[in-house]
């Protein structure tokens, strides 16, 4: 089991001070538009490596007008062990993470907690650019393999170095080869992890009885195939050097990968599916991710579902709640009305968020029967 048993938000966005306590059940958060619901989900998303579900800077998350900085505190409970986790930012400076009072790198969060999410901005995931799909895929991959974060950071770093050489028209072949070797090594790690993650998702979708339609997923490069050997990718980078110099950036590698989704049962590309079908595919993937993770690490991840409930018909919504409860996941869900959570009854706890003059206020309830 993995869950948050406490969460304290201080000076975090619209929340000045919220002290919340939880048991293992899912959490239904309801309240008017702009009351501060998504802000709570964002806070939870920060208990995993990366920039959180809004990809915001520490400064953006600093409560205005005070602009003092912010702090999130949580007791993360994983298989009965409590990890006191604190994330702070001083006056908008970069985040610092402390686990059990020890300063650690952000990546250390990935060793304890796993957090996955679905947010309204992903509604257009299948029809917009590859970047969003790649980011979604990397989130999934990271949830299975925490070392994916480091490989990705290292790859990005090396690629920025190479792009700089390209832009400056530097022609030192030794320098390129040294960087390209690093890029090739990290690329293969990234690609292998992504492929393994897709396999896990595919398998978890195929073996479950679920109300949600399976997505069939493949990876595609913007051109050619992604080499699977370090040496092949190294040569591909070397061959591409001249062209890349003209473009001023690197044109081959895992940053050019796209994830293609197909509505499996119908054989229709996800991008050509109806709005509701596209969303259902994403829910199917998120649930599969949670099930596969539970198999892998013995605990379902924290699942953040922002404004998912309201857009589902009654049957699908009931099915989603049932699947979440069966998983034993502490899912965090938002909606403007408590009604959409009624079906959950006492299988979930609730928070009512209200807003007064730009200040969020939270009231906790034992169940969704309010």
């Amino acid at each position, binding site marked *: 089991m993995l869950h948050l048993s406490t969460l304290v938000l201080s000076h975090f966005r619209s929340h000045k001070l919220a002290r919340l306590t939880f048991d293992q059940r899912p959490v239904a958060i309801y309240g008017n538009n702009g009351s501060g619901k998504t802000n709570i989900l964002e806070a939870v998303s920060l208990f995993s490596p990366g920039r959180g579900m809004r990809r915001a800077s520490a400064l953006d998350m600093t409560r205005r007008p005070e602009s003092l900085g912010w702090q999130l505190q949580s007791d993360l409970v994983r298989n009965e062990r409590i990890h006191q986790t604190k994330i702070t930012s001083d006056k908008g400076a970069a985040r610092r993470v402390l686990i059990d009072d020890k300063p650690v790198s952000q990546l250390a969060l990935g060793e304890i907690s796993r957090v996955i999410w679905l947010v309204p901005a992903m509604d257009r995931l299948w029809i917009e650019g590859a970047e969003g799909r790649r980011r979604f895929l990397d989130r999934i991959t990271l949830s299975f393999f*925490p*070392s994916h974060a*480091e490989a990705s950071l*290292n790859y990005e*770093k*090396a690629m*920025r*170095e*190479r792009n*700089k*050489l390209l832009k*400056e028209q*530097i022609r*030192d072949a*030794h*320098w390129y*080869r*040294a*960087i390209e*070797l*690093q890029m090739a090594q990290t690329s293969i790690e990234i690609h292998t992890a992504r492929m393994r993650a897709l396999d896990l998702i595919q398998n978890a979708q195929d073996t479950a009885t679920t109300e949600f339609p399976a997505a069939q997923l493949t990876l595609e490069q913007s051109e050619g195939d992604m080499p699977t050997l370090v040496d092949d990718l190294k040569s591909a980078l070397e061959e591409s050097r001249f062209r890349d110099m003209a473009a001023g950036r690197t044109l081959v590698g895992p940053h050019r990968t796209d994830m293609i989704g197909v509505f499996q049962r119908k054989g229709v590309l996800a991008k050509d599916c109806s709005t509701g079908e596209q969303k259902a595919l994403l829910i199917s993937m998120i649930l599969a991710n949670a099930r596969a993770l539970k198999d892998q690490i013995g605990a379902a991840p924290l699942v953040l579902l922002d404004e998912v409930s309201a857009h589902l018909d009654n049957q699908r919504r009931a099915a989603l709640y049932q699947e979440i409860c069966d998983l034993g996941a502490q899912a965090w869900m938002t909606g403007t009305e408590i009604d959409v959570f009624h079906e959950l009854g006492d299988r979930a706890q609730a928070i009512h968020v209200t807003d007064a003059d730009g200040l969020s206020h939270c009231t906790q309830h034992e169940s969704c029967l309010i």
Partner: protein
Amino acid sequence: MSGAKDIHDLIDLMAKLPGLGPRSARRTVLHMVRKKSYLLAPLADLMQQVAASARECLNCGNIGTTDICDICDSEKRANGEICVVEDVADLWAMERAGVFHGRYHVLGGTLSALDAIGPDELRVPKLRDRIASESISEVILALNTTIDGQTTAHYIADELGSDVNITTLAKGVPIGGELDYLDDGTISAALRARKAF
């Protein structure tokens, strides 16, 4: 604060030192002032001397008080091995271990296109010269295992080519380390570098 400008200037300067903040700087200065004769005065003398004499070794980049450092000056250390490190602190760490008997070459950083640090900024050409002039048979790359450190290591290896034997420090389980605390990368490096028991 009246009449103590020098002391406060000293505190401000001390606070700029790595590892010290304003609070620890105040405490340090107060402590030194209280132990004036056996801390502050000798420290001031020594600092003056060091300021006058400290310099980079023209050969390897080590910090010493002469143009050529003790290590480069010692014939005993000319065993044909040269250990390439990023920083003087790394050289001193190797020396504390006392197991390496060759000479060093301090790069003074790592390659970084983004920070405009190229091979010429890093004493790489000098390394090439030294391999010939000091009849070096083995270059040991002891760079940090960061991306920049490794890029620099690969650069040097690639640049030197096959004229000289190039080795690198092993990566793996630290002595006294517990497996449970190691990250995936270290464990896989250690597993790849396993050897007969």
